[in-house]
């Protein structure tokens, strides 16, 4: 099976204060295939997951190695949703969602009905003229997600976007992501340090090692229900094969 997104020997360095070469990641390799609808990148705290997602997104191109999308070197950007959802407080929900619609070619622009469909899909029906200012993280995440859907992406990158939500909202958002992934055939990549979170939502986990950042293991969902990953991850952690448990949220 051809991978949809593939990272090949990705390394990133920066120059330290004394001019020394500091390694952030070294030889990161992983692939996301057609059957992986929600993949999580599980990393220790402070690992650089935002940096990795920015590289996958195409915002940061300062790295060595290759990122391939459908077998070709990535030449377009993938929607990136940061930890703090990007809902623009001066625009109401409908204007937030249609913000990037005008950037598309006239023939590709979504009609008002199609935009309304997206609002319905993320569960914001009836809130079209509401402003996101002072609204919950869940509300703002839904707006950000709907806006990302406007450009009909193949993959959406989530940078620990669920971290700031309460348990109830998180559960709702998990359901929403799963629904969108199935309905629109969109793949999600979630970067997180929370083992329970990635265990609840992912069908594949890419487990990262600390210092220097590198791929430790890829774990696939064996369809045995919730908690499968968690058990496997905990075994890895307790065996000392990867960073210790204090580097993760459980």
């Amino acid at each position: 099976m051809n991978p949809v997104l593939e990272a090949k020997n990705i390394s990133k360095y920066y120059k330290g204060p004394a001019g020394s070469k500091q390694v952030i990641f070294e030889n990161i390799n992983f692939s996301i295939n057609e059957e992986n609808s929600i993949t999580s990148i599980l990393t220790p705290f402070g690992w650089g997951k935002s940096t990795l997602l920015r590289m996958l997104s195409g915002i940061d191109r300062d790295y060595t190695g290759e990122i391939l999308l459908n077998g070709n070197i990535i030449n377009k950007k993938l929607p990136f949703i940061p930890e703090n959802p990007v809902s623009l407080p001066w625009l109401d929900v409908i204007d937030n969602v249609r913000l990037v619609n005008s950037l598309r070619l006239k023939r590709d622009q979504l009609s008002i009905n199609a935009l309304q469909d997206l609002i319905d899909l993320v569960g914001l029906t009836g809130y079209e003229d509401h402003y996101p200012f002072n609204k919950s993280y869940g509300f703002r995440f839904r707006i950000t997600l709907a806006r990302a859907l406007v450009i009909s992406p193949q993959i959406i990158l989530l940078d620990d976007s669920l971290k700031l939500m309460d348990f109830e909202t998180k559960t709702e958002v998990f359901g929403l992501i799963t629904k969108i992934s199935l309905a629109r055939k969109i793949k999600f990549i979630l970067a997180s340090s929370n083992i329970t979170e990635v265990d609840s939502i992912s069908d594949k986990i890419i487990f990262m090692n600390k210092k220097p950042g590198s791929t430790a293991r890829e774990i696939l969902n064996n369809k045995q229900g919730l908690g499968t990953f968690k058990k496997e991850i905990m075994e890895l952690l307790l065996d000392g094969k990867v960073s210790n448990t204090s580097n993760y949220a459980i």
Partner: protein
Amino acid sequence: MTTSYHSERKHYYFIICLLILWIILFEFILPPNQILPRPSITLLSFINLFRDYQFIINILSTVSALYFSAIAAGIVIWIFRKYILTDKSIFKFLGISLGRINRLVPVILIGLFLIIWFPVSEYSKYAFMFLISFSFLFNKAAIELKKVNIETIQSINSLGADEIFIFEKISWKAIEPALAASLTELHYYLWSLLIVFEYINGGTGLGKLLRTAIQFKDLADLFVYGITLWILILFGMSIINYFKNKIFFWSVN
């Protein structure tokens, strides 16, 4: 909202109490002195100002120079924002560098140069106010633009938006509340500078009248100027706050 309304009302009550105290003390109890004028003399002085010193024309001259120039500076920055405030713009670099000089050299010195460069005319006042407003707003905008959340920009950029689109639709909008909030500071700043400018330059305006009052040691006139200035500044502030709360109602964080 209700709390701030009540707290504002308390301030007004306090001011009214002070006025009543002034009337009782300085009209009926204390003898004439050089601390505060008698209320009846102040009232006569107020009438005289209108009759003999073209008070209205002087007020209009000061108010129009201040507000028209500040509004013009705001409009110029808004129109040319994408040419002068984007990261690649040379004007942004120049503006920030000039802003740093501005921190070291008191602005009033620039005003003194303007007095020498320009003939004594109304235009020099407008030019001075425009220059001050422009540099203040420009610097404020440049500083606030640096604070715009990089993740917001990157997220919109990942959806295919280019630099100009992000600047106009995201970064600029994100700094608007902070710019609007800075108008309060600018407002006080402009009033102070303009009064000093008119005081030195002469011509027309409240600063010129203030100089005359000080020359003649006319306490009643000074008192009237004080009250007039206070009312004008308060009125200007109320208008600024009204528009600030009405139009720029959001906060980015």
